[in-house]
């Protein structure tokens, strides 16, 4: 039969939406914003001379814009700006660190599940099913309650719950990647398994996990803030955004900004990390 080559597949608008060569504004905006926040937290002593713990009842309840207290003072006369900046140190540190352990553990388990399969995969995936059956906050709260208040318990609790997401993401990626030609070639060449996993598979499957880690940092910051709001997180009087909101809620009518400002800070951190995550996705899609 006389035939022409197969026809053009149905026209798809998405194929022409991809723009090559466009600068990744989203990524740079996110990185810049996040860098500014981190710098502000690191150099807090340079940005404010006020002690976040120093009480001064004579200077209590000053409105934002008061001389010497840019964001005002709270019920006990503590400087809000310095409490925000020092609070950022706590929340950012815990938020970022609480993601590292789950990222490592979850990725390793996911790698092994996807590569090895069999009984190991079955057991780990059953475990995953059980962990995801608990609402994130409830399990974290229950674990912190059982382990005792404090940042150490928060690390452990978030790690115990958070690895699940990474395990699922990496496992899915490995299942696809191990059938790709480069992985088959590496297997055929007789390289040791650990080398195939670390040098050939991991670099290809870890990107998704890292993108997820960006929003996971936001999630763990939210967890710390929530725990502290409930009185299970960082012990007072250490400055921390969640406990600042809890304290501010008591004087909501007279000093609305006490509860408002720390919440806005969490939102801005979330925005920065969301931009980074979106930017990373764009970056990978471009390649």
């Amino acid at each position, binding site marked *: *039969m*006389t035939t*022409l*080559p*197969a*026809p*053009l597949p*149905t026209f798809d*608008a998405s194929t*022409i939406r991809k723009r090559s060569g466009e600068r990744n504004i989203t990524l740079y905006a996110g990185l810049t914003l996040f860098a500014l926040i981190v710098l502000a937290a690191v150099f807090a002593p340079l940005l404010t001379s006020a002690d976040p713990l120093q009480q001064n009842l004579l200077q209590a309840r000053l409105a934002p814009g008061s001389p010497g207290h840019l964001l005002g003072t709270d019920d006990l006369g503590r400087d809000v700006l310095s409490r925000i900046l020092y609070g950022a140190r706590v929340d950012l540190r815990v938020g970022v660190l609480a993601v590292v352990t789950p990222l490592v553990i979850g990725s390793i388990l996911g790698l092994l599940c996807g590569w090895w399969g069999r009984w190991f995969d079955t057991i780990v995936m059953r475990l995953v099913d059980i962990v995801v059956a608990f609402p994130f906050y409830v399990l974290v709260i229950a674990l912190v309650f059982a382990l005792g208040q404090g940042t150490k318990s928060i690390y452990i609790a978030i790690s115990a719950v958070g690895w699940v997401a990474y395990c699922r993401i990496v496992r899915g990626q490995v299942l696809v990647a191990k059938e790709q030609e480069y992985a088959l070639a590496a297997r055929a060449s007789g390289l040791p398994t650990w080398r195939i996993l670390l040098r050939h598979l991991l670099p290809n499957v870890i990107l998704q996990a890292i993108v997820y880690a960006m929003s996971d940092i936001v999630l763990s910051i939210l967890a710390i803030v929530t725990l502290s709001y409930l009185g299970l997180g960082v012990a007072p009087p250490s400055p921390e955004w969640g406990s600042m909101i809890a304290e501010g809620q008591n004087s909501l009518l007279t000093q609305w900004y006490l509860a408002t400002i720390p919440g806005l800070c969490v939102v801005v951190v979330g925005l920065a990390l969301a931009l980074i995550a979106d930017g990373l996705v764009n970056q990978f899609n471009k390649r």
Partner: protein
Amino acid sequence: MTAPAQSGPAAPVLEAVDLHVEIPLPMGQLKAVRGVSLSVGAGEAVGLVGESGCGKSITLRALLGLLPVPARVTGGALLLDGVDVLGMAERRRQRALTDAISMVFQDSLTALNPVMRVGDQIAEVPRRRLGMSKAEAHARAIDLMDQVGIPEPEQRYRAYPHQLSGGMRQRICIAIAMSTEPRVILADEPTTALDVTIQAQVLAVIDKLRVERELGLVLVSHDLAVVSQTCSRIYVMYAGRVVEAGQSLPLLTRSEHPYTDALLRSVPDPDATVERLASIPGQPPMLVDVPPGCAFAPRCTFARDVCTADPNPPELEPVSVGGSHTTACVRHQDIDLASGAVSAFVAEKEA
């Protein structure tokens, strides 16, 4: 309300005149359709053939008034019963076009709503637009399913698309197309996705309906055999333009354009992953920066300087004075194409 009798059977229901379609891209305007004129009359079947990306599918979507975003019509006229619809307000134009025209797609699986029962998809227009009661619409759907040759339509009514075979699904698509009581059917590679044995049956259904209901049919296909069996006239498209048009038999037996000739000669490799014509070296031009003159010249063995001398693309001109067979090849009188290709094609058709 029958149209007054006009000169001969050729009074077109749907006619495109010098139609232009452009797609804005970051690197510039992609001129997907560059001045296509075609027409189809009641009860007439015309074919539109060409390589991948030549603009056939986009032309079809433009005729229906449903171009994919962000493509848009940038020039020309679209006449429905002699009335230009492009000047109408969008809502009215859409109404006029969808009332008169239906479309059948290549891939019946994607063309059907996966979460809706196939019968409901057929009954939707009778129910929602033709003002029938639920029972009447149901009966109409069953009737249509029967007409397109679906056995046991009552049971199949309740099926979901994924539960039917490809051939049955394509029949459902045809029934949906018929449910609007159209006067023209646009079929975009309607049998390409089907098994060879099913292809003929589905084509027969379309052709039967065309004859019975005096439908106009525009059949897009890369399969010259399919087109030549079904259509009385053929348009050959290349790089967004019609390069040759005419009655099927003269066009296929005495093609007057080197591109048509190359199409007829080409024997496709069924295992080829890259879509290209074995017998024509090179690739169709990117339609962002259109080369001057005849777009086929860079790939044409007969090309001379004269082919690209005029920056404008060559217009269709009659092969013989007063004839309906037209070609856009400026050298058609100098070259002789009617040689091996035709005999090979005819021989295959006979076989």
